């Protein structure tokens, strides 16, 4: 069996497994799983930029929040239906990531990280500043009867699970296609050595910009869907913490692997969930894992599996 076929089979197999889990999971884990799948899409968007292009962003919450507020504000204040509002959420992701991306192209390395951090901090403060519309930390709650597309009530656990799974499947397919296409290979080449890639005649700025927009839009999609499925948009989702989370999930699962974000999000979600019985200071666990990961496992879980045998993992 060719490697291409093997990787499609593996990823679709995981989607099928999640489809079966829908019917057997107890209700608490069922709800958690839907949340994990939406957050996985956020991490997958992050992974396109960090894992494959090698650009470490500390401000992805800006894109996540762009999607979230694009959807919630147009539903709340313009009284749009969920479908068009979802498109607005996606579009605000495209616009924000394109604007920020054009500025980011002028920076590299540590400056890139600080600039992303600053832009997302400015975004977070803007959400707070316009508290009249966004209700700041308190957040917006989307009414249950509004949360439906084409007659499907997305606040119902089963349809919510399927919607989350659909979104994640789309993100997996997009990621796989990107990685297998020439575009993805150029991104990896930029990560490994951008000077050499430029020498080979690739327009690295254009590739970087495309990666930022793709990554930002995927994160915005996750943000918009999170808001739609769980009915809440709050300023916390724009804060630094939510920029650090996808970094943590991707590092834990394995940067530069398609499955890494899912594995990382799943692990971290349950790690924090289980530890919340012991302590309320759950960010302690996040911080400790970040330090340990940089020290001992920069490859992450899936990265480690790839290194030790399954070399074909995309």
């Amino acid at each position, binding site marked *: 069996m060719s490697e291409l076929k093997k990787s499609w089979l593996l990823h679709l197999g995981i989607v099928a497994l999640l489809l079966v889990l829908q019917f057997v999971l107890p209700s608490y884990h069922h709800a958690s799983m839907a949340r994990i799948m939406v957050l996985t899409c956020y991490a997958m968007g992050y992974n396109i930029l960090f894992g494959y292009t090698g650009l470490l962003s*500390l401000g992805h919450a800006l894109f996540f929040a762009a999607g979230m507020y694009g959807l919630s504000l147009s539903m709340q204040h313009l009284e749009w239906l969920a479908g068009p509002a979802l498109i607005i959420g996606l579009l605000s992701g495209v616009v924000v990531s394109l604007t920020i991306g054009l500025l980011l192209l002028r920076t590299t390395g*540590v400056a890139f990280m600080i600039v992303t951090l600053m832009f997302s901090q400015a975004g977070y403060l803007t959400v707070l*500043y316009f508290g009249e519309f966004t209700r700041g930390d308190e957040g917006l709650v989307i009414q249950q009867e509004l949360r439906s597309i084409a007659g499907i009530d997305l606040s119902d656990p089963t349809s919510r699970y399927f919607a989350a799974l659909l979104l994640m499947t789309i993100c997996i397919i997009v990621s796989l296609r990107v990685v297998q296409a020439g575009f993805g290979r150029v991104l990896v080449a930029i990560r490994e050595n951008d000077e050499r890639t430029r020498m080979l005649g690739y327009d690295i700025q254009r590739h970087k910009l495309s990666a930022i927009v793709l990554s930002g839009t995927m994160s915005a999609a996750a943000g918009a869907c999170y808001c739609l499925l769980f009915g809440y948009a709050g300023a916390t989702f724009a804060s630094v913490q939510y920029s650090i989370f996808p970094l943590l999930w991707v590092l834990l699962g394995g940067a530069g692997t398609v499955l890494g974000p899912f594995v990382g999000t799943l692990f971290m979600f349950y790690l924090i969930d289980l530890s919340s019985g012991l302590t309320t200071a759950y960010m*302690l666990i996040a911080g400790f894992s970040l*330090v340990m990961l*940089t*020290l001992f496992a920069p490859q992450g879980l899936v990265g480690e599996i790839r290194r030790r045998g399954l070399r074909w993992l995309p």
Partner: protein
Amino acid sequence: MELGPYIILGLLEGLVTAAVLSLMAVGLSLVFGVMRVVNVAHGEFFMVGAVLAWWIAGSIEGNPALGFVAAMLLAPPLTAGLAVIADQLILKRIGYDPERTIVATIGLLYVIQQLTLMTFGPDARPVEAPFNNRLSIPLLEWTNDGLALYWPWGLGTTSYKIAVILAALTLLVAIWLLMTRTRYGLIMRATQLDRETALAFAIPVNRVYASVFGLGAGLAALGGVLIVPIQQAHYLMGHDPLLLSFIVVIIGGLGSLPGTIVAALLIGLSDGIISIFFSPTLAKIIATLAVAFFLVFRPQGFFGKRAL
């Protein structure tokens, strides 16, 4: 009250901010200049300094001045020790790789912050200042008899705030002397200029790194101790100073000490004045965007030669 006294008040508050900020930013700038890494946990060392000051001052009986002096003498070295341990356990092992250091120090930030939350608790706690007399400030005014002094109502400061400004000035001069006039400063500058050559000249670069990281953290902690009688100790107090010292270091030019101090003065004073006219959130939005655009369009800052 007219506008004039407001501005003077803003400038005075700004000077206090600038004093503490310059200590913190010099620490951050030293770490960046010599080790070429960005320490995101710098704000937490500031916070640890303040929290330790509360703890030390609280555990010493008698005159509050005694407790405060003890805090000033003990809290910065303790924080520096913590930083040296972090350097040896974490940063040294990842070879001071710039990007991995940022990730690791973000982790460190959360660990320190949450451990403080678990032990110190979520409350803001005050430390009594060693002395705190109110000083009124006179203004000149034209009257029928010529120039005369008058004391506008509400225009004043405390002796402690003046002392903070003086203490910061003294410390900055001390740092400058340390960097330019001592053997240790020479070694630091050598490491900053060229790590490889310094190594070839038998300079223990790893020990220099550890001590610079400790020194930077100690300076931040000292800033924390000085500010705690004015602004209470709280486990989240490191965030805003971290942001501001980033701004200062970037605008002043990375690794440039004079630039850092000029920028601290600029940011501290404008922070004092801006916060009179704008809401704090808007002021912070402007400040963060300023850093971002600075890094995008003028990454070397006003005084620096190198870009980040």
